């Protein structure tokens, strides 16, 4: 392993340990029950980790981390249930401000500095093509929202008339779910953001993977401890084979992300693979979370164990990436179109 690789690994391990200390399941459950942000989020301790600088160029004070490290850190975020809004903040808002600043917009440069300093917060609203509304997750006291639609982005102030934000009770409560609509003062997002979109996709996929991986670990641990019928439940094939199926789904997801980021690193976009993973990874992660709840039996269904937090996160990401059926259909359309067929998409 090279020095750089070791440093990257150390950063990921340190981030994992820090998040484990800051984000405790009982506290996250309380926040979810009250649909309010976790104390670690409001208290500013998470901001000290420098998450928002991950995707910002070095020249603008960011870390400018490579693709595989983006995936690795996002997986750590998923595993530790990092606030949802921080994904949008780090992978859409911050790089969008950076892009605008580099294009000469000084106001964006100032915002970016404030964001990196933790003085300004914001999130991302990711719109489906041609749609003017979506559910986004915004951090406490958000002032900015980066609106990403297709491969264009615009950064809007929440107190202006370009965007209309209405808090809603999210499937993943306590994460600042809000219904975001383009307001009367909005114009179409214009800043090119294909790279930002891809980075957000990679981060979303890795976050879902990380959350599901944690569920699998918890399930394996539980199955080796829980006794029923006078035996550890892992000795029953019905249980161990389900765990194996969960592992297989995640192994394939890992291989897929590995292939994707290796391609992106080489400058190959891998559009079909990106479409494939946008379907398969949320689907795999969902199936693993459902398996985890099942393996835990009655305990798995309780509020206090908290498996539902991972499940809610993954279900939400699955919708953000197109939903279980539509994501597969898109992949089919793209594939058949690549064979020279005319389709209705």
């Amino acid at each position: 392993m090279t020095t750089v690789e070791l440093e990257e690994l150390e950063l990921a391990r340190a981030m994992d340990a820090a998040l484990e200390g800051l984000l405790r399941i009982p506290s996250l459950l309380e926040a979810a029950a009250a649909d309010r942000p976790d104390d670690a989020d409001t208290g500013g301790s998470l901001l000290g980790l420098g998450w928002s600088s991950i995707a910002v160029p070095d020249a603008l004070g960011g870390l400018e981390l490579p693709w595989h490290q983006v995936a690795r850190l996002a997986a750590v975020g998923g595993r530790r249930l990092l606030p949802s809004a921080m994904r949008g903040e780090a992978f859409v808002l911050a790089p969008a401000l950076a892009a605008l600043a580099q294009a000469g917009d000084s106001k964006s440069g100032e915002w970016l500095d404030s964001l990196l300093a933790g003085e300004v917060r914001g999130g991302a609203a990711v719109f489906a093509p041609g749609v003017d509304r979506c559910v986004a997750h915004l951090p406490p006291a958000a002032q900015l929202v980066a609106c990403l639609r297709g491969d264009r982005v615009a950064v809007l102030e929440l107190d202006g008339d370009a965007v209309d934000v209405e808090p809603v009770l999210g499937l993943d409560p306590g994460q600042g779910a809000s219904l975001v609509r383009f307001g009367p003062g909005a114009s179409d997002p214009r800043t090119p953001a294909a790279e930002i979109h891809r980075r957000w996709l990679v981060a979303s996929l890795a976050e879902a993977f990380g959350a599901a991986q944690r569920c699998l670990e918890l399930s394996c641990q539980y199955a080796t401890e829980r006794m029923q019928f006078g035996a550890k439940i892992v000795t029953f094939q019905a249980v161990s084979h389900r765990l194996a199926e969960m592992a297989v789904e995640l192994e394939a997801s890992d291989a897929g992300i590995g292939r994707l980021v290796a391609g992106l690193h080489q400058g190959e976009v891998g559009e079909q693979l990106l479409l494939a993973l946008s379907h398969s990874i949320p689907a795999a992660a969902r199936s693993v979370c459902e398996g985890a709840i099942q393996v835990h039996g009655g305990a798995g269904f309780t509020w206090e164990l908290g498996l539902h937090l991972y499940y809610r996160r993954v279900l939400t990401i699955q919708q953000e990436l197109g939903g279980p059926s539509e994501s597969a259909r898109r992949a089919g359309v793209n594939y058949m179109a690549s064979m020279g067929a005319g389709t209705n998409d």
Partner: protein
Amino acid sequence: MILDRFPAATLSFGPDEERLRRELREWLSAHRPSPPPAEYAERIARQIEWQAALRSAGFIGLSWPERYGGRGLGLAAEAVLAEELARSDMPELINRIGVYMIGPTLLDFAGEDHQARFLPGMLDASELWCQGFSEPDAGSDLAAVRTTAVRDGDEFVVNGQKVWTSRAGIAHWCAALVRTDPEQRRHRGLTMAIVDMRHPGITVRPLPQILGEPHFSEVFFEDVRVPAGDVIGAVGDGWRVAMQMLSYERGLFVLERQIRLRRRLDELARLVIEHGRETDTSVQERIGRVHIELQLLEAQVYRTLASQLSGTLRPGATSVDKLLLSHVYQELFALAADLIGREEAMTMNEWTHDLLESRAVSIYGGTTEVQHGIVARQLLGLSDAR
């Protein structure tokens, strides 16, 4: 989560591999044989000629040492070959069990003399190989092998029966897992013997498969004499050798299968388009799901090959390849049978042929249930799992 393993490493091709790919494509386009004959013996003869021609052109044994007729290249070069052959209309290599499984195992475990004796014949298909593992009472439970090899002077005398042995009827040699120490139980006391299939004590009885084709056989051993030195690895170390051999059944094997399946999906998609059904959203979704699974399988195989290359393959990891392959293989032909039309689905054709044949993939080389056990025990480390 093991952070230092995520995201997984993947196989990459450098300029050398790309050069090889061009070389192969040129050769393949210049050497297209006519379609394989329908008659079995003629078809086998044609396949032997095909492998010998590839060998003469220097494309078989790319990763093998040059002293045995290889080219001393890496696994990535073998991957290029597997991909390009799968993209051509040629059938699989007739001696693929030798070239992809037994040969590499000989390179791992056998002495110089055996390597020099057996490897060249594998490459040009002048000596075909089969693999004698399963027995009537040792299928999924391979360690229950009962075929014995009793030492008699400087020979072993082999007695017993193997079953579901692919290509036994045409093989010259068999890598047979036999019990050399009857006092030992299960995984101990086994040895991998090299058995000459032309020995008069061997009877091969074809066992027609689900499609009525005799691709595998029962093999009976009656006082078959094997020189005591003709073993792969040490006497008594057969289990380890067998497991290594099985691990080679993934990687390149699955890579080639994956591409062949992708070509079949392409055919199906073209059929769908011809019938004007490509705008049906349900068809789009279902085709999309299979295409997605094939891409995941490709990523998984590239990952396996990268691990094999770097020597970091985890025990049990290749079971993932097998499970993914089984699933998408069966899904693809189930989907095809649903999309080709009722009359086509009720008559024998290439789609219904493959639908029936697809049941094999979740059985051979360790059933899906066995693979799940391996994943649970080895990959997840659940030692109490069964």
